[in-house]
Structure formats: structure tokens, C-alpha cells
């Protein structure tokens, strides 16, 4: 479970994230959507300890990310939008290093299984420069799953994947949640969010506009058709000045 309470991130005078609060329970997939510059990436970076927040609290399974960072990070995994792997480590090396960092006792077996699952077994000794964008993305997800995190944060996880790989990745995300992890998914692919997420948070200018299931946020907006999809709701919500 991950709990975000009153998160604020200032860049000088700019409030990139402005008092954001939400929580994702174990087994839940929460979608984070918003227009460009809404503060999604900054939020994810604050949630994963990459960027220190100006104010607010992030707790992972009850461990405060600021006060107990080691305990919190042991339970956390992040897949950034751009895979930045180490040029000098092979795919297998990345998994070995990650296994040691998180103390995964069955690291080698699990690494082999993940390489198989993500169709990277025959590329285990390849360096990142020898992998396609999609393969790198798969490797990043494999690295994230290696230590069986209880909170998985994904930023645009389907970028660079072919349709078949997209299908498999969606299944994997569902399965990870079903196995008891809280998943936070940020994406501009609204159909993906609609398909996977039980609850959705819509951000704009660093603030939370709407939160809830698709039906709940649909009801929160006046004059929206009962069968409106997330795209329609998103456009209405982010265009509606009164709500922002």
C-alpha cells in the first residue's frame, strides 16, 4: 500500500505538485493521468525518492519514504518513462546487481524466469546498446519485478512495445496487482488506464482535479454522458476552469 499525503513540490516559484493526496491499496491499480506539465512525472519521482518533496508525506507499507527510506525502497519499484540502463552492464548483469541490492535469495532463478517471461533469454548477455527500445523497456520492467515489490510505479510502461508485447505487459501488470502489489500507472494512453485501473486520479497544474473509479469521476462532472469514456472525461475535466 502507498499513501501520499499533502505532497508539494516547488521549482522556485512554480508549484509543480500542489498538495496532492491519494492512496493505492494492495491489489489495486491506480491510474495517474493529466495533460503535459500537470506534474505527473514529478509526482512519480517524489513517490520513488528520486526527487525530495518540498512538503508532504509518502508512506510505503507504512514506512515513511523520507524517514525510513531503506525500508520503504525495499518494497518499492519504479519503471521510468525512458529506460536508462548502464551501458557497460549486460541484461543479466543488471538483474544480478539488482538481486544483490535487494537481497533476493533466489535472484539467479528469478532472473532467468523473468528473462524468459520477457523474451530476453537469448539477449541475456547483450549490452543496452544492442537492445531495441522495446527490449530495454522490458528489461526495466523485469528489473522492477525482480524483488517482488509491494508497490510498483510505472511511467508510460508500454512505450516502444509491439502490440503482442503490449498485451503481455498489460497481463503482467494485472497479475502483479493480483499477487498483492499496489500499482500506480501513469500514462497518456487513456484507453490503457481505462482498461487496467480500478481508480483514477486526474491531475492538472499539480493539483488533483478528480479521483475515483471511472463511474465516480463521470458522476463528478456535470453534463457528461453516462457512457462517456476516460478520454471524454479527461478533456472535459482538464478544460473546465472551474474545477482547476
Amino acid at each position, binding site marked *: 500500500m502507498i499513501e501520499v499525503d499533502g505532497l508539494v*513540490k516547488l*521549482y522556485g516559484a512554480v508549484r*509543480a505538485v500542489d498538495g496532492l493526496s491519494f492512496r493505492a491499496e494492495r491489489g489495486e491499480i491506480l491510474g495517474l493521468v493529466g495533460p503535459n506539465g500537470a506534474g505527473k512525472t*514529478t509526482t512519480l*519521482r517524489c513517490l*520513488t*525518492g*528520486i*526527487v*525530495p518533496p518540498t512538503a508532504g508525506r509518502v508512506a510505503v507499507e507504512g514506512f515513511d519514504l523520507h524517514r525510513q*527510506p*531503506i*525500508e520503504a*525502497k*525495499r518494497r*518499492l*519499484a*519504479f519503471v*521510468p518513462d*525512458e529506460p*536508462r540502463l*548502464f*551501458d*557497460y*552492464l*549486460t541484461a543479466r*548483469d543488471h538483474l*544480478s*546487481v*539488482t*538481486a*544483490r*541490492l*535487494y*537481497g*533476493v*535469495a*533466489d*535472484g*539467479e532463478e528469478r532472473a532467468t524466469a523473468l528473462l524468459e517471461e520477457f523474451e530476453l533469454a537469448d539477449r541475456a*548477455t547483450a*549490452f*543496452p*546498446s*544492442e537492445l531495441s527500445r522495446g527490449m530495454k523497456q522490458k528489461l526495466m520492467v523485469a528489473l522492477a519485478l525482480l524483488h517482488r515489490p509491494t508497490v510498483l510505479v510505472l511511467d508510460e510502461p508500454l512505450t516502444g512495445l509491439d502490440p503482442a508485447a503490449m498485451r503481455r505487459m498489460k497481463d503482467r501488470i494485472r497479475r502483479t496487482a493480483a499477487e498483492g502489489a499496489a500499482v500506480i500507472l501513469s500514462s497518456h494512453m487513456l484507453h490503457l488506464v481505462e482498461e487496467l485501473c480500478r481508480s483514477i486520479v486526474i491531475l492538472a497544474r499539480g493539483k488533483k482535479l478528480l479521483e475515483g473509479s471511472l463511474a465516480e469521476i463521470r458522476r463528478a462532472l456535470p453534463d457528461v454522458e453516462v457512457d462517456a469514456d476516460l478520454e471524454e472525461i479527461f478533456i472535459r475535466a482538464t478544460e473546465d476552469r472551474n474545477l482547476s
Partner: protein
Amino acid sequence: MNVTLLRILVLSIRGRFVRWIRLLRQPKYLIGFVIGVAYVGFWMTRSTIGDQGPFFAGRGSALEGEFAPVLQIVLATVLAGFVSQAWLLPWGRLGLPLREADLMMLLPAPLTRRQIIGFALLKSQGAILLSALFISLFAGSGRPVEQTRLVLGIWLTLTLLDLNKKGRALFLLRQREIAPHAAMARRLAVIALVAGFWTWLGLSVRRAVSPAVVLMLDGKGNLADVAVALEDSVRSGAGRVLLAPFLWLTGLPLADDWRAFAGALLPSLVVLVVAREAVLRSKATFEESALQHARDLASRRSPGRRFAKLSERSRLRGPFALRPTGSPEMAILWKNLVLLSRAPWTRWLWGAILVLLAVALLPAVLDPPGFVLAITSGLGWMTAVFVPLIMSLGLRNDFRSDLAHLDMLRTWPVDERRLAAVEILGPAVVATATGCFGGALFIAALVGARLQGALHGAPSMVVVPETSIILGVPALGAFALLAAGVVPVLAGATAMISAAKNLAMLAFPAWIGIGPDAGRGIAILGHRLLLGSGMIVALAVGLVPGAILVGLALLGQWALGVPWSAAEFPLWGVLAAAPLFVEVWLLTHAAGRLWSKLDPSTEILELGR
């Protein structure tokens, strides 16, 4: 040069300046800037406090004497060496180092090849000029007129080196484009040209200098005669023709007055114009390779090509076995060592033992000339003392590479201080191991000399008195004890430099090129010089407490009437190193705190992506 291209350059410089000024809004950068200005100001104002520049001091300096022309010849020869050696290597950067943003704009634009190459050449001029300024600060006298000549001279010399580098990069690219037999013919021609140049020069100098050297060895002449003969050989005949361009260029920073400067300037400019024209006329289709290079650079993947050449077997190796459980920091150390080499440490150890055994035992069998072991012991000494310091500063298997992967590192469940410690440890371990090998090589050379002397009675050029006792211990044992004493100091010193370097990187990440490919080439020479001298100052300050401690121990011993002994060298080494380790511990804590507080969003780190 196209006016629009010039405008792009001006705007780019303005953009950098604005970004730099914005950084100064942060107190730490402002404080760093003030300290930096004071540091540079000290070098600039040395002449007013009586100090003289070490190399190019101008009138009244030691270089004004009989060896000044020899110095110019040596510098010209070194310059010729730099220029020519690059053409012998069949590998290296291809094409022009332009950024993807530049290329995306320039390639579709209605510009000629010549204009784009000219743009690439002009683009590096800012950094070269800055490097010339920094170098002149360290090397010059501080007097404005001499300093100006020095800056101009170094600038033009660095420009030649830059043109040479880019010309070679285009040559290498062209080699790939033409038929293999034509490429081979061109390569052979280049090798023949370089070999011919050095053979001709070497023979010409040898012919002229040999008689003077023989007279000096016979005690009938002196070094000044050799210098005069050397000067004569280069100022006339073949040497004059061969070294002329390099003598003109090196004549600029060494000029005593504006008249001499002007005399060297005109032919130097001709050399540069010819070199520039050669680069501009290159037929290499640089566009594709430049784009690839730019993409590699943008994604920080350029070192990937180097690793991609590794065999499947090598890819399975590592410096040591990394098990899935245990201290997580070891994973980071393993990763950082892999950046340098995948060979297991045991292989390095066995290799070193083999070399040491060969150095210690082979002289007894082969009875080589004395200078062989003299050079070997000298190399050992250099490797033990200087190489580790340079390595700990120059190696990039620490935060310098890892800050480019900040997103990943920050999510790792590793304590900040332990993370900082292990990042500092990477270069320090490698540098210390190299230093230990150097010390062992020195001792092995001494042992080899002793064995050779005992078996063949050959006079040894290794500087160890045959039967002398040093502080109560036989010379060989004393040197071994000295080496044992140096090890902890070396470990402390390399850790100290590595810690100071990493601390500087974490404090001012926007000022330091991050990533394995950042900051290479002639253009950042000055930046390196500034950083290197800063680190040496840090080390010198760091060594003071250890020196005081050893001094007090020696004084106490003397006061108590206990004689000093070489057997105490290791103890003195530990005493000297102890404060260094305390300082490293403090710096590591500071680095850990900086790491935990580092906000990439407020640094240029973010903007570079």
C-alpha cells in the same frame, strides 16, 4: 562563415551564459564561484606578490638562459609527436562531434558541406580559448602583456591540435567509405609519412648531437654543448624543414616580445589556415556518422560501442563473484569495477605476480644492460607514487558515471553514506592496487639487480648502495619496509582524492560533466587542469595532520633517545595515513548528506536530458 550559423553560435553561447548565471542564484554555486574566482585571481596576481610562472616566465627567468631554445625544440617535438601519433592509430572517433539538435537543423538547411564543417570547427573555439586562458594562468608570469602573448600562443597551438583531431576523425571515416585496397594504400602512405618524418628527424639530430654527447661522456664537454648541437641540428638542414611548423607555433608562447611574437605569428597562421582548409575539403560523408555520434552522446550510449566488442565469454565474467545475498553495496562496487574491466581480480593478481617474478629473476639469467632495471625500477616508483594519484582523479567509475543514472540509483535501498563510501571506493581501490603493484615492481627490480650483481658482477644502475645500511636495516629490507609504509598512505591519499572529487561532483553537479562520455578532448584541458590542481591542494591540506603526527612521533623518539629505525617505516606510514582516513570518513559523510539532499530538478542535470 554563414551569418546565420554565426548567429546560432552567439545565441548558444548566450544561452549557456544565462543558464550559468541562473545557477549562481543558488547559494552553493555562488559560494563556489567566489572561491573559484579567488583561486584564479591568486594565479593571476602572482607577479604582484613576487611569484613567477613555472614555465613561461618571460624576461629575467631561468628560461631566458642557454636552455630556452632547447625547451622550444623539446616542445615542438612533443607537439609534432602529438600531431603524428594520432594518425597511426586505426581507431578513434569518426566524423564531427555535433549535437543532434544542431544536425537536425543544419543538415536539411540549404548549407554547403564546407559551411557545416566550418561550423563544427568554430563551435569548439570557445572551449579551446577558455582552456588556453586556464593553462596560461598556471603557466604564465601573471604580467598582462606576457600573459596575453601566452594565451594567444596556447590558443593557436590548441587550435592546431583540434584541427588535427577533427581531420583525423574525417580521415578515419573516409577510410570506411572507400574500397579496402584504397584505404589500405592510404593507411600505409600515412604510416610511411610519419615513420619517414621521425626517422629523418632522428638521424639528422643524432648526426649533429652524437659528437657533443661523446665529448660530454668523456668529460671534455658539458650539457650546454649538447644543447647547442641540438639547437644547430634543428635550426639548420632537415630538422629546420621538418620541425618548422611546430617551432613557429611553440615560438608564440615563448616569445620574449611582440616583435618575436609577430615573427612567429604569420607562419603559424599559414599553418592553421592550411590545416583548416584540409579539414574543410574532406570528402568524408560525415553527416550520418555525426548523427549517430550525436544520438549516442544524447543517450549517453557512446561507450556502448566499446563494450559491444566484448566476446560472449568475456561478458559472463566479472571482477569477483556477485552472489544474490550479502551487503548490497558490493553490488555497486562490482558494477563500478566492471566499468573498468571484466577480468577477475585473481587474473590481475596472477598477471602481476608473473611480471614481478620475471623482473626479479630474469636479470640473473639474461644479464641485461644496467639501464633496463634502472628504467624498470623508475617505472615502479612512478607507478607507486604518481600514477595512483592521477588515476584516483581521472577514473570515472564513481558518481561521475552514476549521476547520469540518478533516477535508478535513488530508488535503490542503500544507505546514503554507504552509497557514497562505495562510490568513492571504486577509483580508490583500483588506484591503490596499481600503486601497490608499482611498489612491488620497484622492489622486484632491486632484487633483480642484486641477483644480477651477485651472479654476473654486472654494475647496477639501480640506485641502491650494495652494502649500505639504511637506518639500521640493510638497504633492500629498508626499501621493502618503506614500500610497506607507503601502502597505507597511498590508500589514504587515493581515497582522499576520490572523496574530494566525488564531493565536488555532488556539490556542483552542474559544473562537472557527468557520464562516461562527458568531458573529453582538447577543449576541456583547462577545466581538467583547474580541477586537478584543486584536488592536489585538497590532498596537500589533507596530508598536513598526518605529517604533523609523524613529526611529533619522530620528535618524541628523539627526545627519549630512541634511535630512528627503518623498521618503523610501516608504523610511520600508518600514523601518516590515520588522519587521512578520518578525513575520508568525514568527506564520505558529507557526500552522503549531499547525495540525500541532491535535488536533480534544481540542477542542470535535468536540463541535459
